């Protein structure tokens, strides 16, 4: 029997959060964490968590799995169970709505701040704005982000200043549009990032890279943004 310890909090009923212990029979199989949660939900229907695609595409089931942020649906037990125990907590640093469900408003606010859409003042061509294969290749490793918030909620700089520091997820998308050959608002985008918090609160500890379930590299993107700021600001 696998021991599972889960963070429980129902603000309507509980004075404070607590850890609840469960036991699950996995039949010795190397299940995904989400499978275990589904089995527990059958045992205890009051347990709350988010899930949708169950294959690492939608980014709904980001949570802290035995101390490391990840997606429950693509994290096998063999990667996270220690001493036959699995510990599940909500993503750190965000307000808890209930159990493993967190309020992502602050995360989305920072995403919105980097204007994650293409801005181009030139008249659109009849069919589409073309890119060379090389220009398109610059977006690889940037566009794949699914906004699961595993990276930003693993970042101490974002824990301390979530309202001022954009955080790794937002900055990866900021660079995705800075690097896009079709975007003409580079200077305006850079001007919004030049202060001591938005980009420069990153201390380069690479927690974001360590936890990203899509194996993306926000730290490298932040380094590229710094280079662009250096180019335009010196």
């Amino acid at each position, binding site marked *: 029997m696998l021991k599972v310890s889960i963070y429980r909090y129902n603000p309507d009923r509980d004075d404070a959060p607590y850890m609840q212990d469960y036991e699950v029979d996995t039949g010795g199989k190397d299940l995904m964490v989400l499978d275990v949660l589904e089995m527990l939900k059958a045992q205890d229907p009051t347990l709350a968590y988010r899930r949708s695609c169950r294959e690492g595409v939608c980014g709904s089931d980001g949570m802290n799995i035995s101390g490391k942020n990840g997606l429950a649906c693509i994290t096998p037990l063999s990667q996270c169970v220690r001493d036959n125990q699995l510990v599940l907590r909500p993503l750190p640093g965000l307000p808890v709505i209930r159990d493993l469900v967190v309020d992502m408003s602050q995360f989305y606010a920072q995403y919105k701040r980097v204007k994650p859409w293409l801005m181009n003042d030139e008249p659109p061509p009849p069919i589409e704005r073309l890119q060379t294969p090389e220009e398109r290749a610059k977006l690889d490793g940037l566009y794949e982000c699914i906004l699961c918030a595993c990276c930003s909620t693993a970042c101490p700089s974002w824990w301390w200043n979530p309202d001022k520091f954009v955080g790794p997820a937002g900055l990866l998308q900021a660079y995705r549009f800075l690097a896009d050959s079709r975007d003409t608002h580079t200077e305006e985008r850079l001007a919004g990032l030049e202060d*001591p918090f938005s980009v420069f609160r990153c201390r380069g500890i690479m927690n974001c890279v360590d936890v990203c379930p899509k194996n993306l590299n926000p730290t490298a993107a932040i380094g590229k943004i*710094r280079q662009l700021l*250096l180019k335009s*600001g*010196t």
Partner: protein
Amino acid sequence: MVTNATSFSRSGLSDWLLQRLTALILAAYTLFLVGYLALHPDLDYAAWARLFAGLPMKLFTLAAAVSLAIHAWIGLWTVLTDYVTERLLGPVATPLRLALEIAMILVNLGFAVWAIDILWGV
């Protein structure tokens, strides 16, 4: 754009560049002093005073002292704005942070001026 009044240069880019530049100056000065002390095991006051008598050494030391003040300003400002915040401490945080920031700035400036006084006063 996030605004701020007490960071060293008010610009994230300048602060970031200055922190790296001052680190290089401090590293060079530290290596020089450690090397000098290692090569002079029987150091006495006369030799030590001779080392600091020349203008190049005075300027190098001044650069290191100013670098230390700037480096500490940027670094401690970052620490204070990370940990002394309303998010962590409640409403007391803003006056407390401002007081600590002003104290930190005064101490840094004081040390820099004191260094000048020592360099040209002895």
